[in-house]
């Protein structure tokens, strides 16, 4: 039995190392000074000419704080809108009877099948038509980044599932107490679906934070860049200066790494089944 466990540990340690090795090698490169050949054979994991100067160098040339703030605004507002709109739409679909319920339900379900990548061109044309681009002003630019992702069927169905799980007696008691539907929704039901809201918030945040395709289509001004777009841009700025590119990539990863470690139980506990996205 003990022998078997040893083998499992060996396999898992190997896989864990392979998972993080690309980052380790990037960190190693980012800490090597100009006196050290980053293409040396055999490769050196521990820098011999250790330096922080690549970090200070790239920090001085690239507006990381700006990219970070832009990413925070985009991800933050996207999360808030998704929570509010998904909960609002999920509630009547779970709890109310009304004319047109079936068709609304299936229409929303149908959007699950539409991949953004297939409709991005008309979405872009619509965004232009609504003047939601950064050459109008920054606010319009942010709205253009956020609104196409402000709500989606996954979130709505996640919240609908959560509302379905609440016993009907809760609402009936509130009605007896004289609450209207909006008070029931806001004061009684929303607090009860907090776990689902948390799951939705966290996965929406990660998705929005890492989004690359859409911002690289709509953004025209460097001042509006989000972190992924800014990091991709490092390649053009520092062409073959891999020390700087590595340092910039690592710097840009620190915020999401902190977020992940703080929230890790939501990601790895395996209790977020509802958040599985296709």
């Amino acid at each position: 039995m003990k022998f078997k466990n040893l083998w499992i540990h060996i396999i898992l340690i190997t896989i864990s190392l392979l998972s993080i090795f690309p980052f380790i090698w990037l960190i190693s490169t980012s800490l090597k000074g100009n006196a050290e050949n980053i293409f040396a054979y055999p490769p050196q994991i521990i820098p011999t000419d250790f330096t922080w100067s690549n970090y200070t160098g790239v920090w001085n040339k690239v507006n990381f704080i700006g990219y970070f703030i832009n990413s925070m605004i985009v991800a933050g507002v996207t999360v808030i809108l998704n929570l509010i709109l998904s909960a609002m739409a999920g509630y009547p679909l779970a709890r109310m009877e009304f004319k047109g319920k079936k068709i609304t339900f299936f229409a929303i379900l149908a959007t699950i099948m539409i991949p953004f990548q297939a409709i991005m061109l008309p979405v872009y044309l619509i965004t232009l038509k609504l003047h939601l681009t950064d050459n109008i002003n920054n606010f319009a630019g942010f709205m253009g980044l956020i609104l196409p992702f402000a709500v989606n069927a996954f979130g709505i169905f996640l919240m609908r599932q959560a509302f379905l799980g609440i016993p009907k007696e809760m609402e009936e008691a509130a009605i007896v107490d004289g609450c209207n539907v909006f008070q029931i929704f806001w004061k009684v039901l929303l607090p009860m679906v907090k776990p689902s809201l948390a799951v939705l918030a966290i996965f929406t945040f990660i998705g929005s934070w890492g989004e690359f395709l859409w911002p690289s289509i709509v953004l025209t001004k460097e001042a509006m860049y989000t972190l992924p777009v800014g990091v991709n841009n490092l390649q053009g700025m520092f062409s073959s200066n891999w020390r700087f590119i590595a340092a910039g990539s690592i710097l840009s990863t620190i915020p999401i790494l902190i977020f992940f470690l703080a929230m890790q139980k939501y990601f790895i506990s395996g209790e977020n089944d509802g958040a599985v996205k296709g």
Partner: protein
Amino acid sequence: MFKFHSKYAPYLFLLPAVILLVVFFFIPFFQTFGLSFLDYSSNIYKPEFIGLKNYLNMFHNPIFYKVLWNTFLYLIGAVPILVIFPLFLAILINQKLRGVTLYKILIYLPVIVSIVVAAIAFKWLYAEQGILNYFVNLCGFESIGWLTDPKYSIWSVIIVTIWKGIGYYMIIYLAALMSVPQELYEACDIDGANFITKHLTVTIPHIMPTIALVSTISAISAMKVFAEIYVMTKGGPLNSSKTIVYYIYERAFENLDLGFASAMAVVLLIIVMIFSLINIFCFERKKYEI
């Protein structure tokens, strides 16, 4: 506080979400078909109606077949590994060992890191005189042009997608493993079944729905790949790593050939919708029941 008649309440609750879904999903969906009948290549401001000509051009374009083939390679390269390997890892992690949380965190890490950073990290590993070629040389082979040789480029990109997805599917499997009744394993132990037969006869039949789910969602996400290709190869060399989404992007936003790009988008829509329908009707039916 003002009081709405509760007859209107459901519509008011649904309205904001429905407006956004109409503007950013339904209208673009139908517009994609509409655009695919137009020709923008002669004058971007004055498109001409050309019927099915974009589709005809597409079917006569060798790049179209190359791109479809590459997307197919992506499916057969990434999906089987993403279905089997994370399951294997989940079973190992589920053995209630010490240090399991640390393993989970490390294996999940690639999932949360931005795909752009991941692609840059791999581009560095794949460099001409990079660390991977060092090991290739060490084994006595010539250096490989991971991203510069048309023979290998698509596989090098697929590796990144696989590496970034393993942790995600592993966690989905772990959740499914929790639902397998422990008595079944105990029965196996009494019968003296070994580790492998135990999982082949108990675990796999029990979590078949999850295996099917992972197959379809990993297939759908393999068809939507973009950032890896954009950051590492731009679809090159010689279109060898170009997939459908990258080709749509290129035709639409670089060549401004909106009609042709939309015809390609219709192809992508149809393929993804088939997989999604399988997914919704076969594996996630319960979640979407009215």
